[in-house]
């Protein structure tokens, strides 16, 4: 049937259907005028005219897209306004292009989401509208009207604003590829408008690039003034991104909104337009937000070196986390931006270098403190030499010689001073464009050392030593050992060789070389024991490290004997002595390794209390004790206490060292162990995997700590039922462990045993038996030593493997 025919059918059908039923037959015959085919077609259609067919919408009775749209506020009327089209959506509501029906004027109608406004907020918004109407500035979109409207049974508020035809600020800036000067000019204009509102008692409170539109003439116009003030908690409501413009004091709950909060937003917008990123990276977690906001933003000049100087100063002044120190007004901000453009002197206070360094140091408090002390001692020593030569020595030595020596010493002091200043300068964020951190700086310093300093009179030795200690403090143990070893090689007869050796031993111990460290400590102990006049403290320190090396080498009974002897010496020291606290902690560790968990927890509890008293709760050593005590509680099945202690250690260590320090990793490792204990395997595995990756990178694959994590991860995978992955890990672990641990270390035996256990479970008895035999042989067949329990376990497992194989 062709289309015209169909159109005719339609016409006839409609006419016939409209007629009363009685007249239909006659009408049909007349309409079809002899075409039987046409009549039959229309008749068959009429026969199918059934009201019940498709009567109900497919999505159910009562469903209507129109209703659904009204639900979403897309098609509705509010007051005298009729929404025409949607312009955008924000956290607080939707914006429409709407018409004021009495006048036909087009407006931007902002309708707050039902629920975005409390009744109190609605009242405030209406009151605010009166204020808003008074704003009259080319940089602010005018507010025409405000009112309440019913939207799908709920009352909500609307604001009718001047319809601004423009591009959002960020889009404009990137689209036009605006220069720095254009951006600065735009922001000065925006600040003018903000100042106008502030002077009339209106704070914007939600300034962000999307609330600034640039008109066709290139002039900025701010929309949404005063709205955020009346809506519920902006923090909770805002969807991604908005937080970045929120001043820290606004993040802290209950803070009243103030003009300076808008100034912060002006700074943040400028920062973002200039660098492409927000000054503060907000985590979505509530606590993290505040913490991040209180941290200083990365300097503008570090991201764009050409912006160093005045512009950087102005923007950071506006971004100061402390409102009291921040740029005081939008007008101030605008004025300074214009001074910058004119090349005039700005009024924002310059950030002093020490303050920048202080900001950096805040993140690395303990570490920087240690380094500064080492360096200061070194500099004082040199300065003293110069002074001495210039005065007392002058009398005895011929003047020319004296002056020459003094000059040499002064030159040396200057060289050291320059070198150290260079290091510290490099440590500040201004030193580079990337993300330099202290340990990178120290590593660089260690590399550049020979070329910048000429050795004379032990200067180099002292510097190497100081650098070694600094590297140690940031967890670069292997490099630290290298520097201290150099210092030792360069040291003259007057230097404290025993002190250097002890430091070297400690660095070696931490870098995983427990065997040579143990040998070194044994030698020092023997020497000290032979000399009658060695100070008690030195002998005590040596005893402690000796015990630690024995512990790390897996010689638990030797460790116990040494630590007990050391503690006898330590009894003469004050209770707050840090080495003494560490030694007491080690006694706890040894007890724990020997299976005496109750005793161990007791030792730790007492020790922790003393450390808190003498060193403070946030001291690294206190945190170490908390970390270790947590493990004892885990052994004693007190999960709650364990978790609390670990969390405390983790928070404290992170704030001291950042995220990738070995101590932080140690706590994370323990946290993973706890999760495993709680059978939260997925979490535990994820965490342990991260620790393993970082330890791998930081300490190397064969470091004892890396090995422990590696092993624990394999166990977690096994417990989590991921047998194949577990086996792969075990298989990779053994060669590393054989390379990294003494052949008779009990960890090695334990690793082999656990792998054998997994294989045994898989009925791979031959492989299991081989491993167990290796483990038993490795552990040695000592009689009643500390490893008797492990040895017994190995034999028992071997027996059951043999039994299973025999079946």
């Amino acid at each position: 049937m062709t289309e015209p025919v169909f159109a005719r059918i339609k016409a006839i059908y409609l006419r016939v259907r409209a007629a009363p039923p009685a007249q239909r037959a006659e009408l049909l015959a007349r309409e079809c005028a002899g075409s039987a085919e046409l009549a039959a077609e229309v008749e068959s259609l009429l026969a199918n005219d059934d009201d019940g067919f498709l009567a109900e919408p497919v999505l159910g009775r009562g469903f209507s897209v129109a209703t659904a749209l009204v639900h979403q506020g897309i098609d509705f009327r509010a007051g005298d306004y009729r929404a025409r089209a949607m312009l955008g959506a924000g956290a607080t509501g939707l914006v429409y292009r709407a018409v004021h029906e009495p006048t036909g004027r087009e407006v931007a109608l902002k309708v707050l989401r039902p629920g975005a406004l409390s009744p109190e907020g609605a009242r405030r918004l209406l009151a605010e509208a009166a204020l808003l109407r008074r704003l009259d500035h080319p940089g602010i979109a005018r507010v025409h009207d405000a009112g309440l409207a019913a939207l799908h049974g709920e009352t909500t508020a609307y604001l009718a604003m001047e319809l601004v035809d423009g591009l959002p600020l960020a889009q404009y800036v990137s689209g036009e590829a605006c220069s720095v000067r254009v951006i600065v000019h735009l922001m000065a204009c925006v600040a003018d408008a903000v100042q106008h509102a502030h002077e009339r008692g209106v704070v914007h409170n939600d300034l962000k690039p999307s609330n600034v539109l640039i008109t066709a003439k290139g002039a900025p116009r701010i929309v949404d003034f005063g709205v955020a003030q009346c809506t519920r908690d902006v923090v909770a409501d805002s969807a991604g991104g908005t937080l970045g413009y929120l001043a820290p004091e606004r993040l802290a709950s209950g803070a009243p909104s103030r003009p300076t909060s808008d100034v912060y937003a002006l700074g943040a917008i400028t920062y973002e337009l200039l660098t492409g990123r927000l000054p503060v990276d907000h985590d979505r977690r509530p606590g993290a937000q505040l913490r991040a906001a209180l941290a200083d933003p990365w300097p503008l000049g570090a991201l764009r070196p050409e912006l160093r100087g005045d512009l950087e100063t102005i923007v950071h002044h506006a971004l100061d986390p402390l409102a009291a120190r921040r740029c005081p007004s939008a007008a101030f901000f605008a004025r300074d931006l214009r001074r910058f453009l004119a090349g005039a002197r700005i009024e924002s206070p310059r950030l002093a270098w020490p303050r920048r360094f202080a900001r950096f140091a805040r993140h690395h408090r303990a570490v920087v403190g240690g380094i500064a002390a080492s360096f200061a001692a070194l500099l004082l020593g040199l300065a003293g030499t110069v002074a001495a030569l210039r005065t007392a020595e002058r009398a005895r030595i011929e003047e020319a010689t004296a002056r020459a020596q003094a000059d040499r010493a002064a030159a040396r002091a200057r060289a050291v001073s320059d070198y150290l200043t260079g290091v510290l300068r490099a440590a500040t964020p201004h030193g580079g464009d990337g993300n330099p951190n202290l340990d990178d700086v120290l590593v660089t310093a260690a590399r550049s050392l020979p070329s910048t300093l000429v050795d004379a009179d032990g200067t180099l030795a002292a510097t190497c030593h100081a650098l070694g200690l600094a590297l140690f403090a940031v967890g670069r143990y292997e490099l630290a050992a290298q520097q201290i070893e150099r210092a030792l090689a360069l040291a003259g007869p007057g230097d404290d060789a025993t002190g250097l050796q002890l430091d070297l031993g400690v660095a070696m111990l931490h870098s995983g070389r427990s065997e040579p460290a143990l040998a070194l400590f044994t030698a020092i102990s023997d020497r000290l024991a032979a000399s009658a006049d060695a100070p008690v403290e030195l002998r005590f320190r040596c005893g402690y490290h000796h015990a630690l090396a024995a512990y790390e080498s897996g010689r638990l009974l030797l460790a116990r004997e040494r630590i007990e002897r050391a503690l006898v010496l330590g009894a003469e020291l004050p209770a707050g002595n840090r080495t003494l606290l560490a030694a007491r902690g080690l006694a706890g560790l040894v007890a724990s390794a020997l299976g005496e968990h109750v005793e161990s927890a007791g030792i730790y509890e007492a020790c922790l209390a003393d450390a808190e008293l003498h060193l403070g709760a946030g001291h690294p050593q206190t945190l170490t004790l908390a970390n270790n005590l947590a493990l004892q509680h885990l052994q004693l099945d007190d999960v709650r206490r364990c978790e609390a202690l670990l969390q405390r250690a983790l928070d404290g260590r992170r704030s001291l060292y950042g995220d990738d320090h070995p101590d932080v990793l140690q706590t994370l490792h323990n946290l993973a162990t706890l999760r495993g204990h709680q059978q939260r395997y997925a979490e535990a595995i994820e965490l342990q995997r991260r620790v393993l990756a970082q330890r791998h990178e930081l300490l190397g694959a064969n470091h004892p700590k890396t090995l422990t994590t590696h092993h624990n991860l394999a166990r977690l995978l096994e417990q989590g039922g991921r047998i194949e992955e577990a086996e792969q890990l075990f298989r990779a672990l053994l060669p590393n462990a054989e390379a990294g641990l003494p052949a008779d270390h009990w960890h090695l035996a334990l690793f082999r045993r656990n792998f054998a256990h997994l294989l045994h479970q898989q009925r791979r008895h031959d492989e299991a038996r081989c491993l167990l035999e290796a483990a038993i042989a490795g552990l040695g067949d000592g009689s009643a030593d500390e490893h008797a329990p492990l040895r017994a376990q190995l034999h028992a497992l071997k027996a059951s493997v043999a039994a299973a194989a025999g079946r």
Partner: protein
Amino acid sequence: MRTHGPAGPTPQTAELFGRIYHELHAVALRCLRGERGAPTLQATALVHEVFLRLAKAPDDWAGSTHLLAVAARAIRRVLINHALARRCLRRGGGHTPEPLPLGGLAAPARDAVELLALGEALERLEQRDPRQGQIVELRFFGGLTTAEIARVLGVSTRTVEGEWSLARAWLRRHMRQEAEP
């Protein structure tokens, strides 16, 4: 795909349709696959989800009446495609990962076969009379009243009523003929 309507197809409409369709589809999939025992998807909830997302789109929409047409079309497309997927599954063809129980979507369970037949018939109808096709779409898939449809199409209520009656009759007859062997 073809776009019909009083204003004629525009690239913006096609893009808007595409977006609504994808949103609806994703939402429907998620809801239909949802946890066992969870309440079945409410049609309105489905559409809500979609518009909530669409509301975030910065586009200047052509207008709300146009939007109704686009939304109704999107719903039609989603439902027909689900029915198709179900049929594929029953025939063992293809690799549709999940059965899509259409019954859970609509308040009165619609047979997928019936829906497919309607879809085919509707396409035929559209070839003959696009406006009738759109009326069916707005009425049956969009759930609009006659008066609303009249406003969307810019015609009188009487016209809509007449056209709806004919379209319905034509579809019913077509589907009955097709159903007979």
